[in-house]
């Protein structure tokens, strides 16, 4: 195998520095004792982390986002698993159209979906409702789950299901005892990916959240446009830490490259 030369290594180091720089700088600034966004030089302080808990708003939004991501990821699994089975196991008129419909939120910019949801929610009087926010998030995260579910389903041989059916298992039993255990890793990976995507979603949410249902990314965006103090850095550092933990879990369980690279 070819080795990388010194120029390649130098280029690689620059790219890695570029990728990590904003994340590292946030984590450093979060520990500043000063009132401005400055790197701590002589002493470190946790004051901005305490400030988050005194501020309350961020905690409420974190709570909102946690519930929203959990509910929408679960709901999208409930939709994507049967839909995936229909699309991979049956041939019927309109199958391709259905597949395209379910994957369309990947192609339509979230901005356009946000505008469209706002229009619909105003029309049906659903603005500010948490339940409708869950529905809107379910729409945008379902494609991610569906892709992983369909990949998992196409990895299962149809013969195995037919064998179970021939041996007298009902359709539901085949699903419960044969298919479900085999696609479980794909489903779980899809759920996590959906959770993360919902938890991080900003562009669509900013149109459809109300002051009561503001999610964490929306709260952070609003805060960052209005005031610049290190509390934002502390919140961001916590987000980075949480993501890193989720990433390690995802990597240990499924292989992050499989979940993310297989995604596109």
């Amino acid at each position: 195998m070819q080795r990388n030369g010194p120029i390649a290594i130098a280029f690689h180091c620059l790219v890695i520095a570029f990728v990590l720089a904003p994340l590292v700088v946030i984590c450093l600034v979060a520990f500043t004792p000063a009132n401005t966004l400055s790197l701590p030089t002589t002493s470190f302080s946790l004051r901005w982390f305490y400030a988050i808990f005194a501020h309350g708003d961020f905690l409420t939004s974190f709570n909102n986002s946690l519930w929203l991501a959990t509910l929408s990821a679960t709901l999208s699994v409930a939709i994507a698993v049967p839909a995936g089975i229909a699309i991979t196991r049956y041939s019927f008129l309109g199958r391709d159209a259905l597949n395209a419909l379910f994957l369309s939120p990947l192609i339509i910019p979230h901005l356009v979906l946000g505008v469209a949801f706002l229009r619909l929610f105003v029309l049906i009087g659903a603005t500010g409702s948490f339940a409708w926010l869950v529905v809107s998030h379910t729409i945008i995260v379902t494609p991610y789950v569906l892709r992983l579910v369909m990949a998992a389903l196409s990895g299962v041989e149809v013969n195995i299901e037919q064998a179970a059916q021939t041996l007298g298992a009902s359709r539901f039993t085949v699903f419960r005892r044969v298919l479900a255990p085999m696609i479980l890793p794909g489903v779980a990976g899809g759920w996590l990916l959906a959770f993360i995507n919902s938890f991080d979603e900003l562009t669509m949410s900013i149109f459809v959240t109300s002051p009561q249902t503001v999610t964490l990314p929306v709260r952070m965006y609003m805060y960052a446009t209005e005031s610049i103090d290190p509390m934002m850095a502390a919140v961001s550092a916590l987000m980075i830490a949480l993501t890193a933990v989720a990433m390690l879990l995802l990597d240990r369980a499924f292989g992050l490259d499989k979940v993310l690279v297989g995604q596109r």
Partner: protein
Amino acid sequence: MSVTARSSPWLLAGPGTVLFTAFVILPLALTLVISFQHFEPNAATGSGFTFTNFVSILTDEYFLGIFWRTLKLSLLTTLACALIGVPEAYILSRMRDPWRSVFLLVIIGPLLVSVVVRAFGWSILLGSSGLVVQLGEMLGLGFGRLLYTETAIVIALVHVMLPFMVIPVWTALQRLDPSVEAASLTLGASALTTLRRVVLPQVSLGMLSGSLLVFGLSTSAFAIPGLLGGRRLKMVATLVYDQFLQELNWPLGAALAITLLVFNLAIMLAFNRFVEARARKVLG
């Protein structure tokens, strides 16, 4: 039996179909309707039927300027992502484990970190007392102001979009048989010729699909121009946001969003056609 067999895919996909029809097709249709309506102050929606919104988007210099900036910055971002992402994916593919998986994780991991966090990180780095500006002064290069410039937007966009370029190129490289490269070198081709004539043609499809992804996501990017462009430097997404939630001119905002959607879909279709033609040529 035959009746249930015919109806069962629809029973399985039914709930999703209803949900997606009600929450993707219906809202988009409603948005299309208001984009053709007159603006009514003090009312959430408009009335009547008019082309005014689209005419003003296509003729007003302010809107054209913003569309032009969006196009320009998205193209620059795509170009920069290709120039950084393709060599980086190639370097990664020539590494040995464990470095390879560690660095792949470092490159694609930030995908999972909220865009708001990453944009905020760049606003610290590029701010007037930020590291990048200080570094520039130390090296005697006066960058001047960086935050709230187009440069800042492109830098942060490249940071956010880079994984979308690396992933497809990486996938294409995984399919490349290393012995083909070795054969080319054995037959006397220089390293550069091998790269240009053997490796690049094989990864060009990955690069094209990566470019499409990066370009499409850049044209509708919201958080980056919102946080790094400030109030003055608008892109289409921030403009739509202003029209909807500040000016409350929903018909115009909807027309802008529809224009962006149509523009994106057109680019994607044209691109797909180009990529398919290219794939036929490459794969024979």
